C-alpha cells in the first residue's frame, strides 16, 4: 500500500499545518518552499499563474553569477601566486590550463572565497529569519541575490567579522527599516559595500587587500603587492603594471573578488537580458555614460589642460573605453544598476538613470582622492534619484498627452463644454 506510506513531501506538509499560525511558521515555510511547492490551492475563482515567481527570478540572477564566482575562486589563487612570482622577480606567463585552472589556485579560492559566501548568506538569512518571525510575515527572497553579490564585491582579505557586521547593518538599515524586500530605496549589497568602505577604509582600499596574504606579508621579507590597475593609475604609475588588454578583459587581474572578469560578466549580462530579468536599457545607457565621461577626460588631456604632473593625469589619460574592463564598472552595471527595486521603473527614466550611473562612476573614479573607484557610490546616488527621475518622466508623459488632448478634436459634434470636462477628467 504505497499510498499510505508518508513521503517526505507529505510529512513536510503535515508539519506545516501543525505550525500554521505559530510564531515559527515563517521560518519553517521559507525552508519548505525551497524544496516543494506549497500544497495550498486557491479556493475561489481562477488565477493567472506565471512560472517566474520571485524565487525563480532570484535564481536566474544567481545562475548568471555562478561562472563569475567560479572564475573568482581560481583568480584568487592565481593572483596570489602571480604576486609571489612578481616579488621574487620570476617571469610569469599566463596559460589558462597550465597555471590558472589548477587545484592550487582553486584551493585558495575555497579557503578564502567560500567563507565570504557562507558568512554573507548565513548572517544575512539569519537577520531575515529573525525579522520574519518578529513581524510574522513570510521570509522574503530578497536576500538570495544580495547574499551572492556581497562576497563578489569585497576585497578577498576582508575579515569575516567585518563582513558579518556590514551584512547585519546593510540588511537592517538598508532594507528592513524600509519594510523589507521591494520597499528598499538603496541596493542592500551596495549599502553593505559602502558601510565597509566608510567603516574600515584600510581594509577596503590601498595596495594590499586585493590579493590573498598581501596584508599578512606586508613589511616582511616576502612582501607581495596587490595593487590594482586603477590603483597604479591613481598614482600616475601607468607604466608599472604589465597587464595586457586581454588580461583586463578576461579578468586575470587583481581586484574585488568577482569584479575582474568582464568577459564572464558580459555573458551573465547577456543571459539576464535574454531571460528578460535585467533591463538592457540601463546596461546600454550606463556603458554610454561611462564612455562619454571617459571621452571628456581624454579630451581634457588632449587639449593639454592637465599636465603629466597633475594627480589626475593617470586616470584621465586612461583610454576611455578601457574604463569598462577594469575595476567594478562592468559588474556594477550588469548586476547592481539593474536591480529592479532600486532602479528607475519607466523606460525613459532607465536611460537617464543608467547614463548617469556610468557618467558618475568614471567621474568619481577620477576625482575620488582616497580610492580610485566610484561605481558603488554612483549607483547608490542614482538609487536615491531614481524615484525623482520616474516622477518627472511620468509628469512629462501626462503633459504630452494633455497637449495632444488639447489639440485634438475629441468628437466633431462635441461642444466646447464637454471637451473641457474631458480635459479636466484626464488631468
Amino acid at each position, binding site marked *: 500500500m504505497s499510498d499510505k506510506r508518508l513521503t517526505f513531501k507529505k510529512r513536510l506538509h503535515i508539519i506545516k499545518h501543525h505550525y500554521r499560525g505559530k510564531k515559527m511558521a515563517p521560518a519553517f515555510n521559507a525552508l519548505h518552499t525551497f524544496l516543494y511547492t506549497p500544497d495550498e490551492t486557491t479556493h475561489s475563482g481562477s488565477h493567472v499563474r506565471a512560472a517566474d515567481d520571485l524565487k525563480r527570478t532570484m535564481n536566474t540572477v544567481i545562475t548568471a553569477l555562478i561562472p563569475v564566482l567560479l572564475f573568482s575562486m581560481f583568480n584568487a589563487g592565481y593572483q596570489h601566486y602571480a604576486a609571489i612570482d612578481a616579488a621574487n622577480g620570476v617571469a610569469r606567463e599566463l596559460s589558462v590550463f597550465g597555471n590558472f585552472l589548477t587545484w592550487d589556485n582553486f584551493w585558495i579560492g575555497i579557503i578564502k572565497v567560500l567563507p565570504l559566501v557562507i558568512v554573507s548568506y548565513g548572517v544575512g538569512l539569519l537577520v531575515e529569519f529573525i525579522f520574519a518571525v518578529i513581524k510574522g510575515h513570510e521570509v522574503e527572497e530578497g536576500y538570495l541575490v544580495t547574499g551572492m553579490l556581497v562576497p563578489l564585491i569585497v576585497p578577498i582579505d576582508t575579515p569575516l567579522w567585518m563582513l558579518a557586521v556590514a551584512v547585519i547593518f546593510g540588511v537592517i538599515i538598508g532594507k528592513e527599516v524600509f519594510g523589507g524586500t521591494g520597499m528598499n530605496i538603496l541596493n542592500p549589497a551596495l549599502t553593505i559595500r559602502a*558601510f565597509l568602505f566608510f567603516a574600515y577604509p584600510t581594509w577596503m582600499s590601498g595596495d594590499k587587500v586585493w590579493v590573498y596574504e598581501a596584508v599578512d606579508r606586508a613589511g616582511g621579507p616576502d612582501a607581495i603587492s596587490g595593487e590594482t590597475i586603477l590603483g597604479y593609475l591613481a598614482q600616475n604609475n601607468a607604466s608599472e603594471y604589465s597587464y595586457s588588454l586581454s588580461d583586463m578583459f578576461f579578468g586575470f587581474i587583481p581586484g574585488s573578488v568577482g569584479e575582474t572578469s568582464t568577459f564572464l560578466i558580459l555573458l551573465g549580462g547577456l543571459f539576464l537580458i535574454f531571460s528578460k530579468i535585467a533591463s538592457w536599457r540601463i546596461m546600454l545607457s550606463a556603458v554610454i555614460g561611462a564612455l562619454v565621461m571617459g571621452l571628456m577626460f581624454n579630451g581634457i588631456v588632449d587639449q593639454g589642460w592637465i599636465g603629466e604632473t597633475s594627480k589626475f593625469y593617470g586616470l584621465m589619460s586612461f583610454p576611455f573605453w578601457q574604463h569598462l574592463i577594469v575595476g567594478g564598472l562592468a559588474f556594477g552595471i550588469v548586476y547592481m544598476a539593474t536591480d529592479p527595486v532600486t532602479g528607475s521603473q519607466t523606460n525613459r527614466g532607465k536611460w537617464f538613470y543608467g547614463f548617469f550611473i556610468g557618467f558618475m562612476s568614471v567621474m568619481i573614479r577620477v576625482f575620488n582622492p582616497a580610492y580610485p573607484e566610484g561605481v558603488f557610490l554612483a549607483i547608490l546616488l542614482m538609487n536615491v534619484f531614481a524615484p525623482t527621475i520616474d516622477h518627472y518622466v511620468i509628469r512629462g508623459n501626462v503633459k504630452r498627452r494633455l497637449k495632444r488632448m488639447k489639440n485634438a478634436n475629441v468628437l466633431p459634434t462635441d461642444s466646447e463644454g464637454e471637451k473641457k470636462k474631458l480635459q479636466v477628467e484626464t488631468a
Partner: protein
Amino acid sequence: MALLTKKDVSLISDPLADNNPITIQVLGICSALAITAELKASVVMAIAVMFVLGMGNVVISLMRNIIPSKIRIIVQLIVVAALVIVVDQVLKAFAYELSKTLSVFVGLIITNCIIMGRFEAFALANGPWRSFLDGIGNSLGYGLILVIVGFFRELLGSGTLFGFAILGDPITKTGLYATGYENNGFMIIPPAALIVVGIIIWVQRSRTPALIEDN
C-alpha cells in the same frame, strides 16, 4: 505646598520620553549630528543648551506681557544670543580645547530649533517657574539623546569614552584589538549620528506604539 506639583513634574518628565524634542518633535537635529562624535562634547553641549534654555525661558516668560507680538522673534533672538555669548566666553575661558571641538556649534545654539520652539510655544504663555522647569525638562530630553548617541559613536568609532580607552589601544593592539577588532570609522562621520538617532526613534516607537503617526 509642595515645591513641584504633579503638573510641574510632567513638565520635566514628558520631554524625556513621550515628548522628546529630538525623537518626537525632531528638532535640534543639526547639533545632534555635528557634535556627538565624542561623549564629552555631547555632555558639554547638553549643559550649554540647558543653561541657555532654562535662563532664556525665564527671561522671556518675565517679559511676556511687554513684548509686542510683532517683534517677538527679534526679542527672543537677542535674549538667546546674549546667553549663548556668555556660554561661549565661559567655554573659551575655562575649557579652551573643548570649545575648539564644539567650534561654531556653540554659536549655533542660537538657531537651535528647540530653543525658539520652547520660547514660542511655552515661555510666552506661562509663568517664570513653570517656564524654567519646561526649559530644564526639554534640555534634559535633548541632552539624553545627545549622550546616548555620543556614547555609541565614541565607543564604536574610537573605542573610548570621555577620552578614556575602554576597548584597549588600537595602535599597540591590546585588549579587544588583539583579537582583530577595529574601530568603525563610519561612526565618526556625521551620517552615523543620523542612523543612530533613527534607531533610537525606531526603538522608542516600537516600545510605545501610541507614538506612531498615522499615515
